[in-house]
């Protein structure tokens, strides 16, 4: 069975600092996608960034980037120049290519950006 572990229940940083959220996963499959979703207090789930396992290059989206280490099964999210609007729960998730298209989710990390 696939599992996703987020070892940091809560983190807080000052505005404009850089923060890294960790995620490790366990799967015996070789083809999969990894995602980071953001859930602000509004409860809406918003896709932040995704990574295809077959791509060696780390994905980036503006201030958000990942450090994907396939051998170590690690998928951390780096947020640069953090902003107050980044305050949210962040969830890591994996989707197997041969699964029934379901996402397996981590328990989340609560990120607080302090002014």
């Amino acid at each position: 069975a696939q599992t996703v572990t987020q070892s940091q229940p809560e983190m807080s940083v000052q505005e404009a600092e850089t923060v890294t959220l960790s995620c490790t996963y366990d799967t015996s499959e070789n083809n999969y996608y990894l995602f980071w979703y953001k859930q602000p207090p509004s409860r809406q789930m918003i896709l932040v960034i995704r990574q295809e396992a077959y791509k060696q290059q780390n994905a980036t989206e503006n201030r958000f980037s990942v450090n994907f280490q396939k051998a170590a099964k690690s998928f951390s999210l780096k947020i640069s120049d953090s902003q107050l609007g980044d305050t949210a729960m962040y969830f890591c998730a994996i989707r197997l290519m041969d699964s029934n298209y379901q996402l397996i989710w981590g328990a989340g990390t609560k990120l607080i950006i302090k002014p």
Partner: protein
Amino acid sequence: NAGVTQTPKFRILKIGQSMTLQCTQDMNHNYMYWYRQDPGMGLKLIYYSVGAGITDKGEVPNGYNVSRSTTEDFPLRLELAAPSQTSVYFCASSLWTESSYEQYFGPGTRLTVT
């Protein structure tokens, strides 16, 4: 473009009551999903559908039923509500192609069973 809409936003049920959570998407997505999110936890898949007329169980289907009579709608039915079903419920949809796999989420329904 509304995306994925869910109704109601909040609901309180008494033990043993039944209700239907509505979900509609206007993106012509073939895949739709129902998740529940318990406090401090990630999402768990209840049911999913790969197209109209086709549904299948996810990780936690007990106590729920779904139907998919149209591409747009994917209602979730709770029969005989129990306190263990107190949770936030999310509906999501996606268009499965080689290059498109993002799931789009509705705003959620907060359900309390007392």
